[in-house]
């Protein structure tokens, strides 16, 4: 029983990070029908901004209150930088291909991904770095389960940002426009919705969530390197497909499910398949329910 609870807790914490990344995949897919494979690398950049900013802050701030404040500052800075990178990514690499066949943008996305990964090795250096301790780590015993305050921080921050996203999508004109563009790009444009700006904003928003995920990931698994975005990126992509790509609540549920399943596999005798299980899920989903858990089957319009 305690194993079960322990695995569940670990899974929820990891899963909420996947969910944050998956949201970016799913939102971009919604508006552009493009799988932005560079998204995992934007998550990596978020971590690295956290690394440099965190290190700088650590030298200049002391005391608990200061450390919480500076952690928030690090988070905001990472969001800002990733927002800009995401914006430029769309503006430079995808917008010129708006009317090109979809495969062209897809290949470009893979290209951008490599650019960020190996460009990252050039700029940050290829060797792993140790993510700074933004918040002091505390071990918490809950009955028989052991956890850290990090898992709760991860969960709390993830919930706050998902709530914020939910509010933006359903409570603001940007969200309305985003849903309109997702439903039908051309009609939205004909109704006066500035589609280019909405798409830019979608990238910015998705990248900011990836930055949040990058910081939370750095806190939880402090070894970071320029290729760190690949695996979580792919798994978050699987999470988005699992939930139904293009579906926002689906991405959250998919992320949590992947995190929890992974955690249980890791805690079982099949622990060496931990990283593989997400892809088994991907295959099963594509075979039996390609529209995902929450996706609606839409026949191709003629």
């Amino acid at each position: 029983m305690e194993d079960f609870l322990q695995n569940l807790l670990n899974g929820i914490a990891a899963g909420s990070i996947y969910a944050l990344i998956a949201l970016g995949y799913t939102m971009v897919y919604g508006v552009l029908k493009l799988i932005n494979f560079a998204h995992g690398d934007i998550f990596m950049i978020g971590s690295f901004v956290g690394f440099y900013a965190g290190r700088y802050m650590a030298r200049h701030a002391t005391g608990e209150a200061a450390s919480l404040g500076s952690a928030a500052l690090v988070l905001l800075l990472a969001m800002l930088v990733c927002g800009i990178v995401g914006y430029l990514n769309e503006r430079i690499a995808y917008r010129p291909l708006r009317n090109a066949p979809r495969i062209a943008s897809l290949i470009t996305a893979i290209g951008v991904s490599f650019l960020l990964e190996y460009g990252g090795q050039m700029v940050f250096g290829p060797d792993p770095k140790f993510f700074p301790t933004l918040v002091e780590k505390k071990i918490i015993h809950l009955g028989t389960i052991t956890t850290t305050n990090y898992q709760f921080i991860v969960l709390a921050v993830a919930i706050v940002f998902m709530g914020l996203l939910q509010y933006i999508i359903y409570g603001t004109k940007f969200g309305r426009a985003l849903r309109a563009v997702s439903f039908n790009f051309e009609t939205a444009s004909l109704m006066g919705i500035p589609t280019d700006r909405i798409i830019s904003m979608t990238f910015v928003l998705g990248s900011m969530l990836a930055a949040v995920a990058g910081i939370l990931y750095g806190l939880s698994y402090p070894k970071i390197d320029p290729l760190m975005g690949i695996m979580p990126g792919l798994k978050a992509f699987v999470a988005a497909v699992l939930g139904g790509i293009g579906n926002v609540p689906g991405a959250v549920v998919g992320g949590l499910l992947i995190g929890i399943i992974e955690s249980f596999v890791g805690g079982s005798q099949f622990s060496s398949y931990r990283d593989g299980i997400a892809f088994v899920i991907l295959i099963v989903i594509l075979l039996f329910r390609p529209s995902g858990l929450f996706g609606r089957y839409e026949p191709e319009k003629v």
Partner: protein
Amino acid sequence: MPATEPILESKNVTIRFGGLTAVSNFDLTVNPRELVGLIGPNGAGKTTIFNMLTGVYKPTEGDIRVGAVSTRDFKPYQITALGLARTFQNIRLFKELTVLENVKAGGHIHYKYSGTSAVLHTNRFHTAEEQAEEDALRLLDLFDLRSRAQYTARNLPYGDQRRLEIARALAARPRLLLLDEPAAGLNTGETAALMTKIREIRDRFGVAILLIEHNMELVMGICERIIVLNYGKTIAQGTPDQIQTNPVVVEAYLGEPVEAAQL
């Protein structure tokens, strides 16, 4: 700009798809508050013209001006911002959004606030959203849709969907409203109500209306001027009376007179 200046001017507009000339040398001027009909047999190029006017297709040749601005390099949403809004032959609502959200989305550009003020819930955000709500509800009232404001658009009956499309287009506050077969699929009673409504819209909002329609009762009943298209060419132009008695038009619709064909 004086009110007499035309809202829309299209000169020598031609579009070719490969070797097919879908529309050739189309000229049209629409003045403020005018009610103009565009008719012609199926495949005459009517919807293609709408698509060029709204920026979906770029004309191969010719010039389209909205206000006095040439729209050649404009994207559809930029043209909408100049004062053109449309509906579609096959209904194209945002079916996953509610009725109210559809109308609000149509007015997108008129409510301005930044992302930051939305997240921080500033006054500016509240005022803009309240204004959007109020304007949208007023439009829904006009089309008797207020009681269904919270329905998801896909669940509306067909006739309501057609009227919601017009409401959504009006939310963009156009100076020229393009209606693509607004009476398609409506019964006689609904069509009669639509005719009254179209006149009411023109008078109330002061918009010009250009409409494509196969229902002759509607076209002849409300249009002040009619343009007849066949095989991409304008074959006649004039008042409803002139059009009804024009032999070229009759021929385009009914074929050549039997005697002529036999001789």
